[in-house]
């Protein structure tokens, strides 16, 4: 009987130590959420470059902007954030964003 108690005590202690060690590491797994861009000319180019550093909802959450604002944004991504986008592709992206997420102005 005594043995049994000691054994279960030991188990409890071992269990506790295990829990403490496991609790020391706190982990989460961030879900992957897919965001669809609007279909249109330049969508693939936009998706390819504009999803390197962040999800595409950075684009889809924006209100409609005049083209000038999209020019500023794309240039900011290239010049300030270092987005590796060749000039010709940048033009395609700006046209796409202005057409699909723009005011038409």
């Amino acid at each position, binding site marked *: 009987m005594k043995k049994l108690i000691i054994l279960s005590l030991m188990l409890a202690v071992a269990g506790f130590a295990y829990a403490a060690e496991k609790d*020391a*590491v*706190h*982990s*989460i*797994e*961030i*879900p*992957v*959420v*897919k*965001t669809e861009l609007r279909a249109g000319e330049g969508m693939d180019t936009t998706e390819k470059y504009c999803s*390197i*550093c*962040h*999800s595409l*909802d*950075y684009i*889809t*959450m*924006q*209100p*409609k*902007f005049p083209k000038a*604002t999209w020019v*500023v*944004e794309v240039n900011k991504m290239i010049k*300030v*954030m*270092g987005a590796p986008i060749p000039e010709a592709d940048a033009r395609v992206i700006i046209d796409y964003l202005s057409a699909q*997420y723009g005011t038409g102005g």
Partner: protein
Amino acid sequence: MGPANFSRRNFLKAAGAVSAMAAVHGFPAELLAYERRMARFPEKTDLILLTSRPPQLETPLSYFKEMITPNEALFVRWHIANVPTSVDVNEWRLKVGGNTEKELALSLADLKKLEKVTFTAVIQCSGNGRSFFVPPVAGGEWGDGAMGNVTWTGARLRDILNSAGLKAGTVDVSFNGLDKPPLPTVPDLVKSLPVDKAMEEDLIVAYEMNGKPLTMLNGFPARLIVPGWYATYWVKSLSDITVLSKPFEGFWVKSAYRIPETDCGCVPPGTTPKKTVPINRMTTRSLIIDPSASSELTLNKPVTIMGVAFSGGRGIQDVIVSVDGGKRWEETRLGEDKGKYSWRQFFYEWRPAKPGRYALMARATDTIGESQPFEGLWNPAGYLWNKVEKTEVVVK
């Protein structure tokens, strides 16, 4: 947690919320290029999804009926994609160095040995309300839900800095967290405070929110709390404090998070400020939570108009309410006072005596007389939003 954990319900578009918001703030719904989705992230409840990588999640307004915002409902805002997802507290250290007598590497246990400080403070993103700007500005398109009222517990930043010992010539103190840029060209999120601000009594390094460890997405295991100032300074998953003898020059202080250097922090809509300064103290703000926008109320049935009000750390003097779009104003009853950094609830009993549409408005004033504008003040980055809002309801 994988994509399988997204129930269909989580993905249902909160289109109602968007159209309600659009009506209240005078945007035709078509102007909003996006639709809002709900998502459930680890240790969080269903929140409004702005972005997923890095996560930006907004609190639905109904949670603000409570004095204290529950941990699982508090908004989430990260800047750069490699956010911490696993921390071993046996390994984690808060390193303190730079222009100091000593270098420190504090464990969580070390932090907890320092005098424990607890207070309630509003946490609010600089860009809360950005989606209401006219003309619109680029950034995180938050409604009113990038805020919350939380009871924080931690160690005084001043005690930490004093144990390291500041050397003469200190001007700034910078703060870095465990988040890392996705590409080396992307500026790491490092923030700084002038040393006088950093040494104020009420700044803490918090390891608890509402009596529990911080959730990972809100900055586990410890974050900076700068009560009264916008949350851009409340660096999450803090790892390094660097004491500087030269002004800090990092991107997120020198180029981002800046407001026009004018009395109102604003410029004529659509224009560029001549000079800017780092954003700092929060502006005075109030919001009607109940009844919510587009509610249908019953004729002659008493209803309590309820909301929250807070300031940049100076408490709230009073909140007045109008039910007729701002023609007549009435005093409200203020709720519990949990200190100058907490929000204050306000209540006004109303019995609508005529059917029709009503525009409910609230306007708060802080203890030094700073109040809220009736027109939205504009700045190019979409900060400091504190316009007196209109909540439209129908009485039938």
